[in-house]
């Protein structure tokens, strides 16, 4: 294993040991700051509560990400086909992006009866913009000469889109997707926080809230750990997807020996 993996793992281990040592020597009570060993134990003992919660949060995240991909790419294509549509609608996409989700989540939850759907909408709102803006950028960053070439051979808009613009935009789209993956998770968690229990099934954020009320701080940390791990897993998966799709041709996926 290279230093690339060893170094961060070593740093992590040292931090965990320090944390445990501080908690023990200063005798900090677990309801203020639990040590990593206690958190790990809680993760195991409360698994039956935490695992279903994780699945719920991940379901919302994945659905939101899928919706973000579909809507983001579709809008980007529409924008690339018509300058007027882009000029008319892009500012509103930006407004959606810059409005803090915590501020509009209560509205959405109030307006939409189905809690799951309202959570999905919140997570989607946060996730879709990077895909939209990156894909728009990618669809526009096509080699001018290749565009001329397609024109020379009489390719219509549709052919040019399929055979030239979309493949050229792929690296940009995948970059946006990696950002959106993390944002979808954040959006889902934030929306769950705002929604509170929301009734029947509840995700990780609700478990964190609940643990806070009940002063079950170790469980709160365990849920936090799960959210972080889920975020890392999403990032790694999307990076792998990106690598697999680009490794034959794109600079970003080339190994050093080229």
């Amino acid at each position, binding site marked *: 294993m290279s230093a690339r993996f060893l170094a961060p793992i070593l740093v992590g281990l040292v931090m965990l040991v320090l944390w445990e040592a501080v908690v023990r020597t200063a005798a900090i009570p677990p309801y203020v700051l639990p040590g990593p060993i206690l958190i790990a134990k809680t993760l195991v003992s409360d698994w039956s509560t935490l695992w279903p919660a994780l699945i719920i949060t991940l379901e919302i995240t994945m659905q939101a990400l899928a919706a973000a991909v579909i809507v983001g790419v579709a809008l980007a294509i529409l924008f690339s086909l018509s300058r007027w549509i882009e000029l008319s609608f892009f500012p509103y996409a930006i407004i959606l992006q810059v409005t803090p989700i915590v501020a509009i989540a209560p509205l959405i939850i109030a307006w939409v009866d189905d809690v799951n759907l309202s959570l999905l909408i919140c997570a989607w709102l946060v996730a879709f913009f990077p895909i939209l803006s990156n894909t728009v950028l990618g669809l526009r960053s096509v080699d001018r000469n290749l565009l001329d*070439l397609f024109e020379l*051979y009489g390719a219509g808009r549709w052919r040019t889109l399929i055979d030239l613009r979309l493949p050229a935009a792929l690296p940009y789209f995948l970059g946006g997707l990696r950002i959106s993956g993390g944002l979808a998770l954040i959006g889902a968690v934030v929306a769950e926080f705002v929604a509170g229990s929301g009734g029947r099934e509840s995700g990780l954020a609700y478990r964190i809230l609940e643990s806070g009320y009940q002063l079950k701080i170790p469980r709160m940390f365990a849920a936090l750990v799960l959210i972080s791990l889920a975020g890392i897993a999403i990032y790694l998966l999307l990076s792998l997807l990106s690598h697999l799709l680009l490794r034959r041709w794109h600079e970003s996926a080339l190994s050093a020996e*080229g």
Partner: protein
Amino acid sequence: MRLVGVRDVSKDFANGVRALEGTSLDIEAGEFLSVLGPSGCGKSTLLRLIAGLAQPTSGTIEWPSGRPDLGFVFQEPTLMPWTTALANVALPLKLAGVARSEREARAAEALGHVGLAGFERSYPRELSGGMKMRVSIARALVTEPKLLLMDEPFAALDEITRRRLNTDLLDLWQRTRFTAVFVTHSVFESVFLSQRIAVMSARPGRVLSELAIPAAYPRTEAFGTSAEYAALCRLTSAQLSEALAA
């Protein structure tokens, strides 16, 4: 037989720059014509007008016997990096609706003609600069066009690669006899390749003089070192200097 007639063509860009002014040029079917001029003289613009990629501000471009199929080679190889050499070469056929098996067979043949048999499955990034340019030429020739327009295609290549490509290009031209219009700023390249050279003035560009290069084909490395070649280069240089002074 005249293939293209450029008649008193001017071209202004949107930013107000006049690229071409009152340019006229005849291109004969089957000839190898070079358009020689300094950088920024509107050579590329002239080529784009002939290709139909831009419209003249005034003047006309005539096609006495109809507009033929044409191929275009850009300054850069302009390949699609996400696909193989074969698929890149097959692109014009794909856009023309040729069936997959046929277009791949023809693309493989075209790659063979430029000396790249065996590189069908390579991606552009796996090829050298000269090889990429060969793929680009194969793509331009895969439709068997009557007219091949080349916009300083070898300008970015090293001297050795450029010489080889010059010889190979002449070889291809002699075998298939397409009409070649070759834009360059190199006196040596234009004399080596062409039957006729159109010399352009600095911006706003127009064709100031034409001169014939009567040397016989095939032109080999030996021609490139002959006294005849040196004399023709001297003559052409003098014409170019005159064009720059005008």
